[in-house]
């Protein structure tokens, strides 16, 4: 492990340790933040409780679906926008401002259109995550070096071959970062949606625990979400590192 990794590990452990001491000593009251060790204990308890399974599976399956739809859909749309300059010019300003729009405001409307349950949540999260993939796809396809496109013509490749064997592999690093963002935003979209206006799911349970002053349960669930998202990201990051090491760039 490199020096930076050691230092980072030390910093994180130190921060958690400091928090633990501050909480245990009462410097930070338990009504605000509970000690990290207490969080872990509460997490274990919560995971063992009966009702949590339904919430977990609802949230995680919603995230999985939103993730898949946004990655595939985002790629296709990004590809089309890259292909048809008129569409690209037309949509550019909206894409650039997309993430400033309060998506959650449209959530109640989605409920009325799609009814209660997971569907409006999934739609919202998909819409939220898709644009990240669209932008990354466009950026990746833009940056295919011209000399590689010329090489495709020298080899007299068909259009399909050129796209599949040259453009996509060349754009892969960007596509991968789009994928990472789409994953993150799927989580954010689902959980934020559940938080604001839902009657089930992890996001809702966190809000519910907050409303009922149940700090242990609240922090347990927060910790859970953070752990899952971070693990997911680390896996994707490791895969990306492996891929990029071959390419050197």
């Amino acid at each position, binding site marked *: 492990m490199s*020096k*930076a990794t050691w*230092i*980072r590990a030390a*910093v*994180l452990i130190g921060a958690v340790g400091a928090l633990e001491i501050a909480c245990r000593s009462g410097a930070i009251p338990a*009504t*605000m*933040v509970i000690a990290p060790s207490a969080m872990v204990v509460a997490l274990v308890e919560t995971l063992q409780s009966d009702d949590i399974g339904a919430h977990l599976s609802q949230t995680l399956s919603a995230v999985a679906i939103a993730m898949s739809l946004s990655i595939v859909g985002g790629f296709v749309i990004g590809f089309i926008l890259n292909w048809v300059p*008129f569409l690209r*010019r*037309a*949509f*550019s*300003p*909206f894409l*650039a*401002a997309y*993430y*400033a*729009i*309060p998506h*959650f*405001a*449209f959530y*109640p*409307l989605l409920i*009325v*259109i799609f009814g209660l349950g997971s569907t409006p949540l999934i739609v919202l999260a998909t819409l939220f995550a898709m644009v990240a993939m669209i932008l990354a796809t466009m950026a990746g*396809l*833009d*940056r*295919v*070096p*011209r000399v590689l*496109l010329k090489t495709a013509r020298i080899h007299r490749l068909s259009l399909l071959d050129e796209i599949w064997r040259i453009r996509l592999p060349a754009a892969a690093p960007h596509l991968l970062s789009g994928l*990472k963002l789409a*994953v*993150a935003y799927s*989580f*954010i979209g689902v*959980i*934020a949606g559940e*938080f*604001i*206006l839902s009657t089930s799911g992890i*996001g809702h349970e*966190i*809000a519910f*625990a*907050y409303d009922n002053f149940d*700090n242990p349960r*609240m922090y347990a669930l*927060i910790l859970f*979400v*953070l752990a899952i*998202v*971070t693990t997911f*990201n680390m896996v994707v990051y490791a895969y990306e590192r492996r891929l990029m090491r071959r390419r050197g760039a």
Partner: protein
Amino acid sequence: MGGMFSFRALRDPILVAISLVALWQVLHHMAGDVAVTAPAPTLAHLWEMIGQARFLPHLRETGLAFLQALAIACGGGVLIGVVLGGHKLTGEVAEPILVGLYSIPKITLYPVILLLFGLGMPAKVAFGALHGIIPVVLFTMNAVRNVNRTYLRAGRAMRLTPVQTGWHILVPATLPEIFSGLRIGFSLTLLGTMLGELFASQRGLGFLLMTAIDLHDVKTILAIAVLISTFAILANAALLAIDKRLHRGAAPDTSGK
């Protein structure tokens, strides 16, 4: 070529805007007033709302929260980014942590913010700043790290003082990328402030939105959403134009477009 606003460039987005409004109208037809109110009445309602005396304090509250959050996110972000970018090891240690923080659903930390800051303005500002500061730091860090060493050597060869080097070389060299970070930080801070306002106080546009959601007042929900979205899109377009201008002098990409 023309300044920031050339009409040909605006033509296509305007077409899309018109199509979006048309789509809105169609959705209204399909889903009815209970889900989507039509464009005209919604905009009329928005106009009426803005005119009412009691609207202004809400607008001012949100504006104030947003500006403060923006100041912290941008000012603090650039400062931290410069430090992390300048000192290699610190940057290396911090980067994965920041990237990790960027990806987590910050809404999960919302209750923690509320517990730490209590209800009211501080919580909103904190939540907004939290959203915006990370991209600013990351972009600034990247910009500082990637300053072309040759520029610095040219500066030393010309015997510039540190201040001169900073002002005449470092600032222009890093400005385009830092500005991109600020642009993204702007959007995210706006989002964060709005989110923060949903539950944190009895004033502000976010509060109005939440009330409308509770009362199922679709017209008001849409009106506020349109107001915020329009502001976001226009502000972003302006920032984007500046962004493009700043990047004009950059070295050309050896790849495709």
